């Protein structure tokens, strides 16, 4: 109940912001922040709940972006259908990659996901129709009323996707599937011995996670009016998607949301006020600090603080 109230408030806030804020740049930057909320939430389904660290975010994200771009070039497909197609393709990639790589454990799985990014990038560098290495220029269509600017429309679309992604992640977290994924993270052998179909659950998590990443990538070509492989399959997406849940906390759906809001906003501010290079450094430093000082993230810190306050109150009585 509280969650749906929160969802309604988030949706209302999104509408209010879209209706009142006049600066176009706000929507341009806000889009990126919301995109990282989707990516971090998606990453956390496999990486946080099941404990399978995935560096392959750019592969799923990029496949989604290219699916949208190619379909738009070929048939001028509407944005909603581009997103649906991108999610489907990235979900299928998740299925294939999951079946192939999720038998690997720990570091080996992580390495396999890096390889996935390289493979996907190579495919699109060599696909002439999709623009090859030089990229593809795309002309935006007119925004759909009531939106007066396309960027503002994309901002709202990404906001809706962020709310949807969080709702999906939370549903999984609270269900028996989420419990099975946590069992896998704690001990895969014990999970299997207690009736958990570990491979099937991991592949499921990989498909959902991949599909959401693909959906997050779909509006990207329209956002930039351009797409090219090097920036689309950029490892910064992998780092952002991984660092946000680590900083926010991986055990709870709110962790990636808090982490992504904080990290992506900071990055936007630093990019504008200082420099683009420093913003990457910032992620690294924050990540190291949190892993060392607060391995359970901001959520973990808050819980610890709450417990401490509660026991102190008890002692005072």
């Amino acid at each position, binding site marked *: 109940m509280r969650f749906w109230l929160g969802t309604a408030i988030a949706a209302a806030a999104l509408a209010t912001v879209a209706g009142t804020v006049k600066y176009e740049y706000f929507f341009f930057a806000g889009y990126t922040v919301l995109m990282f909320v989707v990516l971090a939430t998606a990453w956390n389904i496999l990486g946080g709940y099941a404990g399978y660290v995935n560096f392959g975010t750019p592969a799923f994200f990029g496949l989604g972006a290219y699916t949208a771009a190619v379909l738009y070039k070929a048939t001028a497909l509407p944005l909603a259908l581009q997103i649906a197609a991108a999610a489907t393709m990235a979900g299928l990639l998740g299925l294939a990659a999951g079946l192939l790589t999720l038998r690997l454990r720990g570091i080996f799985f992580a390495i396999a996901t890096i390889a996935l990014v390289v493979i996907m990038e190579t495919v699109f560098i060599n696909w002439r129709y999709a623009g090859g290495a030089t990229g593809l220029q795309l002309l935006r269509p007119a925004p759909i009323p009531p939106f007066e600017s396309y960027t503002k429309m994309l901002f709202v679309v990404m906001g809706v996707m962020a709310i949807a992604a969080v709702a999906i992640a939370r549903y999984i977290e609270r269900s*028996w599937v989420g*419990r*099975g994924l*946590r*069992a896998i*993270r*704690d*001990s895969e*052998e*014990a*999970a*299997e*011995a*207690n*009736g*958990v*179909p*570990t*491979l099937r659950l991991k592949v499921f998590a990989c498909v959902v996670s991949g599909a959401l990443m693909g959906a997050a990538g779909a509006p990207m070509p329209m956002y930039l009016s351009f797409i090219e492989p090097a920036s689309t399959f950029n490892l910064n997406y992998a780092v952002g998607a991984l660092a946000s849940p680590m900083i926010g906390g991986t*055990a709870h759906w709110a962790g990636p949301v808090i982490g992504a809001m904080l990290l992506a906003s900071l990055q936007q501010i630093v990019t504008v006020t200082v420099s683009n290079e420093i913003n990457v450094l910032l992620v690294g430093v924050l990540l190291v600090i949190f892993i060392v000082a607060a391995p359970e993230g901001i959520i973990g810190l808050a819980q610890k603080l709450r417990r401490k306050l509660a026991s102190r109150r008890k002692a005072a009585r």
Partner: protein
Amino acid sequence: MTALLQVNNVSKRFGGFTALDGVSVSIAPGERFGLIGPNGSGKTTLINCVSGLLWNDSGSIHFDGREISRLPAYKRTRGGIARTFQVPRPFSSMPVLENLLVPCQYVVQAGEAEARSLAMDILGRIGLAGKADTPSNQLSQVELRKLELARAMAARPRLLISDEAMAGLAGAEVDEVLGILFKLNESGITIIMIEHIMQAVMRFSQRVICLDAGRIICEGTPKDIVANLDVQRAYLGA
């Protein structure tokens, strides 16, 4: 006699090391069966092959008349084989009760509310009811062993494999765990006990086999085993 578990000529190699070498065992429904042997003799490998965490290289394993040696572990658990782990492997991010919800939901296929009451019932029987909400990474060694057993019980097995459930426990605690196992057996569950505490295995088992270097060197009643010269040699190196 129809055996509940029929292990036939099972071998398992790890590279050049032969962990199991043509092991055959037949266990009757309702039996209390002891499995002993020195360290590294293949006891845990054998039950890993039976429970599905490892696949045997050759031979066959039948449970309830069905060949299971190529089934994934989770299907074997759903089929009625539950086990504990020698080194306790709790789901450490979960409280005690939630540990039991995993088999209640995934094996018994109970809904959330039903699973909770099933799990609470088992915790009561094993004496962990007071710890239901305790994070499982804050349990003592005895409690961890009990949690292992409780989780295996929650899977409603027909065959329960207890892999050193009593290792590191003191006398009274051993009696307590033995009592639980006896009670489970009385309710119709077949039990395989792997144990280093001889006195416990001998008291518990109706029949015992002794493994050494991947082969069965002796099979019989506890009395036969204690008197057997090969067993004495395997343990004492005499």
